[in-house]
Every structure is written in C-alpha cells, then in structure tokens.
C-alpha cells in the first residue's frame, strides 16, 4: 500500500507536467490547427536557456525568468511568425512536416551548441523526504504538483474569467464569427502561441531536475503530450489535463506492476484503444468530418 501511494504521487507529479505540455499542444491545435511535432523539443530547449543564463552568472530564479522570456520570444513569437504563418495556407500536412524538421533542428542545435551530455539541473526545492501513511514522498514531487496546479488554475482563470480569455475561446470555437463580433482573431492566435511558450518553459523547469537536461528529452515528452492530448480530447483544455494525469499515473503503475521492459508500450496501447473506440477523446466533442 505504501509503495502504491508513493507510485501514485510520483505518477501524479509526472502526469501534471505532461498535462502542462499537452494543454499548450491543444491550445495551438484549437486556435490555428497547428499540430506541433516539436512540442517535446520546446520543453527540452528552455532548460538549456536557463543553464546558459546560470553559466553567465545569473542566480537560478533570475535565470528561470530569462529562460521563460527567451521561450516566449523564440518558441512563441518567432515560431508563430517564421514557421507557422507562411505555411497555414497550405493546410495541415506541410506544417506537420515542418515541425518534424524543426524538432530535428532544435535537438541537433542543443547537442551541437551546448552539450551532448546530460546536464544536472537545479531543483526547485531541496529534496527532503516526507512521511505520509507509511509512504516516503519527496518534497520535489509535492513542489511539482503545486506549481503545475497553480499554473493550470491561473490559465483556467485567464480563459474563463477575463474578457481576453473569452475572446480567445471564441477564436478557437469559431474564428469567422469571432472576427465579425470584433475579436482581433490574429492577435488572439498569437497569444495562444505565447501561452504555449510559457507552459513549456514551466514544464522544462519542473521536469529537468528529474530527467536532467538532455537534448534527447523532447522525444519522450513530445510523444507523452500527444498521447495525453488524444486520450483526454484534442479540443478541450480540461481533456488534456485529464489525459496528462492519467498517462503519468498509468505509466508509473504499469512499469512497477506489469512490465518495466514494456514501459512505454502500455500508454501506446491505451492511445490506440482510445483512438479506435472514442476518437474524440474522453472529454472531447465530436468534430465535424468531411467523410
């Protein structure tokens, strides 16, 4: 039982990070039909921004802010203007190919210009074990859960309780109508890219102390984000959150109780099952399809 609680908490912590990445992923899909195959690399890269800032002498918190700011400019603004905008008119496929190329580009850049070795990354809080119902829980897991929860809550407030957030939702649901009603649709789309950049940067700060900062980190994280988004529902923010948490917990439990060799296979089987039985995802709405 104690080990079950331990696995559950650490699963929840990774799941919360997956959820952050998946939420950004679905936001981009909702407002601009961008399927970002480089989303995993978007999480990998800010960790290197932060390490570079720390190497330049900045203390961790300043470096973290610099990292988030750089992510907003490069992974938000530049990504939107340079990669996405010129390609939107060609439809979904060329952009998919382009983000696949971008993921390769970012991965190789991090390897060639920073390091191919895994880099230690400072933790948010000192690692102290907390005892709870006989289980040993790391303060790091609790900090991850706290930060992720706060981020999601802030995003929820922004989307539902402000004029700006409602305008963004209108843009996602019906851009043509939103435009007629006076919503600056193009700016709203840009804002979702900036929000995605903040989310991946926060995810980077949370996950890098656990996995270390390594140029290959994006591969697993990107796949996890896709799976979480699809399990939960591509067109729902809360679906992505649910998907992320479910994925993190299942991954941890199946590795411990079923087969550690096939860790990674279990979420994929769930993914295939969800796509076949309920393609709109657990919480998703059915999107109109031509055929």
């Amino acid at each position: 039982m104690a080990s079950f609680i331990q696995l559950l908490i650490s699963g929840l912590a990774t799941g919360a990070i997956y959820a952050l990445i998946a939420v950004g992923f679905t936001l981009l899909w909702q407002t601009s039909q961008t399927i970002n195959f480089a989303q995993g690399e978007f999480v990998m890269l800010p960790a290197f921004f932060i390490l570079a800032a720390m190497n330049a002498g900045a203390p961790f918190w300043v470096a973290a802010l610099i990292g988030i700011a750089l992510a907003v400019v490069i992974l938000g603004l530049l990504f939107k203007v340079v990669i996405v905008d010129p390609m939107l008119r060609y439809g979904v496929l060329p952009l998919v190919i382009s983000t696949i190329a971008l993921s390769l580009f970012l991965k190789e850049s991090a390897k060639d210009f920073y390091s191919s070795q895994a880099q230690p990354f400072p933790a948010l809080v000192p690692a102290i074990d907390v005892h709870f119902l006989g289980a040993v829980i790391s303060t790091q897991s609790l900090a991850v859960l706290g930060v992720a929860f706060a981020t999601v809550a802030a995003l929820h407030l922004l989307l539902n309780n402000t004029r700006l957030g409602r305008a963004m939702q209108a843009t996602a649901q019906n851009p043509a109508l939103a435009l007629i009603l006076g919503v600056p649709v193009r700016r709203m789309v840009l804002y979702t890219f900036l929000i995605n950049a903040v989310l991946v940067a926060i995810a980077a700060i949370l996950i890098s102390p656990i996995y270390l900062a390594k140029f290959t980190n994006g591969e697993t994280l990107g796949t996890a984000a896709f799976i979480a988004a699809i399990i939960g529902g591509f067109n729902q923010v809360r679906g992505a959150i649910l998907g992320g948490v479910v994925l993190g917990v299942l991954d941890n439990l199946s590795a411990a109780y079923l087969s550690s060799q096939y860790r990674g296979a279990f979420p994929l089987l769930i993914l295939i099952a969800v796509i076949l039985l309920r393609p709109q995802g657990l919480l998703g709405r059915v999107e109109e399809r031509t055929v």
Partner: protein
Amino acid sequence: MNRLRAATAVAATIFAVAVPFFLKPFGIFLISMWAVLTIAAIGLNLTLGYAGQVSLAQGAFVGIGAYTVALLTQAGYPFALAFVAAGGLCFAIGGMLGYPALRVQHHYLAFVTLAFTTLVFLVLRNEEWLTNGIYGINGIIRPTFFGWSTRSALNFYFFSLGTLAVLSMATWWMLRSPWGRAFVALRENPIRALSLGVDTRRYTLMAFAIGSSLGGLSGGLYAPLVQFIDPGSFALGMSFNLLLMVIVGGSGYFFGPFVGALVAVLLPEWTRITQGYYLIIYATLVMVMMAFCPSGILGLIERVLKAAFRSGGTAPALRAEGIGP
C-alpha cells in the same frame, strides 16, 4: 515537355547503371542504400501522395521486413522465399493495422502509426529470444541466384537496382489501372469519389497495405545490404526520414521518392565537411522548402519548367496522377 520527361528518364537510367563503375566501394554502398530506401519511399508515396494519409509506420515496416529476411535466411531458408515472406507479412500487418486505424484519418492516423512504430521498436528490443534484443543480428548473408553471387558491392547494387526497377514498374502499372485512378480520386476529392461509387475505405486500406508491403520488401534488401540490423535503426527516426524523403522529392509525383531518397542519402555525405551540423542544415532546408514550395523538388521543377515553356494548361488533376499527360 513529354519528350523532355522521357529523355530525363532514359538519361537517369543510363546514369544509374553506369555510375557504380566510377565509384569507390563506399559510394556503391550509398547508391545501393538509395535504391533500397527508394522502394520504401515509393510505398509511403502510395499511402501519402496518392491516398493522402500520413503514415509514420513505414520505418517499422522496413524493420519488420529486415528482421524477417535476416531470421529466415539464418534459419536456412532461401532468400527468395524470405523476401516474399517479408512483403507478404508486411501486407498482412499493414492490413490489420489499417483496417481499424483508417476509421480515423489524417492527424489521428499519424498518431496511431507513430504508436505502432514505437511498439514495434519495443518488441524488437525486448523479445531477445527472437531478435537478439539490443545486440541486433550480425552477419546476414547476401543471396546467390543460379550461381550469380551478390556478395560483392557492385553485384548487390545491380540486384537492388533491378528489384527497384521491377517494383517501380509494377507500381506504375498499378497506378495506370482503374485501381490507381481510384487512389488519386481518394486524395483529390474523397466525397466525390464516394458518390461516384468508389469504396473509399477499401481503396485506402489497399493503398496502405500495398505501401506497407513495399516497406517490407525494402527491409528485405536493407538487411543483406548493411549485414547488421538492430532495433534502433527502425525507431521513429527512420519513419520520419522516409516521410521527409517523400515530401522533399514531391509527394504524389511518381518520381518524387527517387529524388527525395537521393537527397536524403547524399546530402549527409556532401555536407560532411560541416561536421555534425548536417542535420541542422537538412532540417533548415526542409523548413524553407515547406514554406516556399510544399510540393517538393519535382513540384519546384515543374513550376520552373511551366514558367519557361508557358505551356500552361496542365490541369491540377494531371499533376495529381504524377505521371503526366
């Protein structure tokens, strides 16, 4: 333009036959790799360029084909049998994967096939009793036909080139048949195809299964070419590469995969002077191409030629056939 096309095809064939005599062994290995990967890319072009479905499973099918041939030939079965088995097995697995997966299309299919590729990798890595796990399979034998051994690099190249010629002619023939026309109809206007009585789901499934079996046949040549296979070679990276080949060459063009595979095989060697940066350069080129010419190199050439000839008038539907007027 028609005459130009024919002249280019003849010149390219003569070049492909003559070029190995001027190359060092490593050069011959590279062009053999080109011939082998082109087969897989032709298969993916059927799925992507003609039936319009994004598949990230082609690398996995190459892997399944390669392991089938490696294991069967090592168990003493003749190469020809193993080669056919590789194609047949991938046809069956492609059908089984495609039957449920094609209920969902486009980006969902991309994710299902992505999951499939990762699952195949995990099975190849973990089932050590069958695949020897991460250590891979060594010393795969190159076949001998009626006393003609393909052991030397040159002979193996001609064997690969011949197989490529046979398979691409079969594909060409299929695309000219009513079947192939139906494939194009699927992509150009699925609703219209459906209303004209084309069973879109069955044709999409056939395109996917045939494309997968070409992936398996490509793998059947890949194993004896490199003579060492391990699970890592057939992970997601290979599927991405094959997808990029089709797109870079020009998806939906019959000769697109030939050009794309050539770029993907040669570019790393040409940019070797840039040390490790070649992947960065390759990725940048792909992004630039997608922004300015998403129809690939052949699309670009066609655009330039059309502007030069001012012949105009080639309808988009003809471009879709990719085999010209």
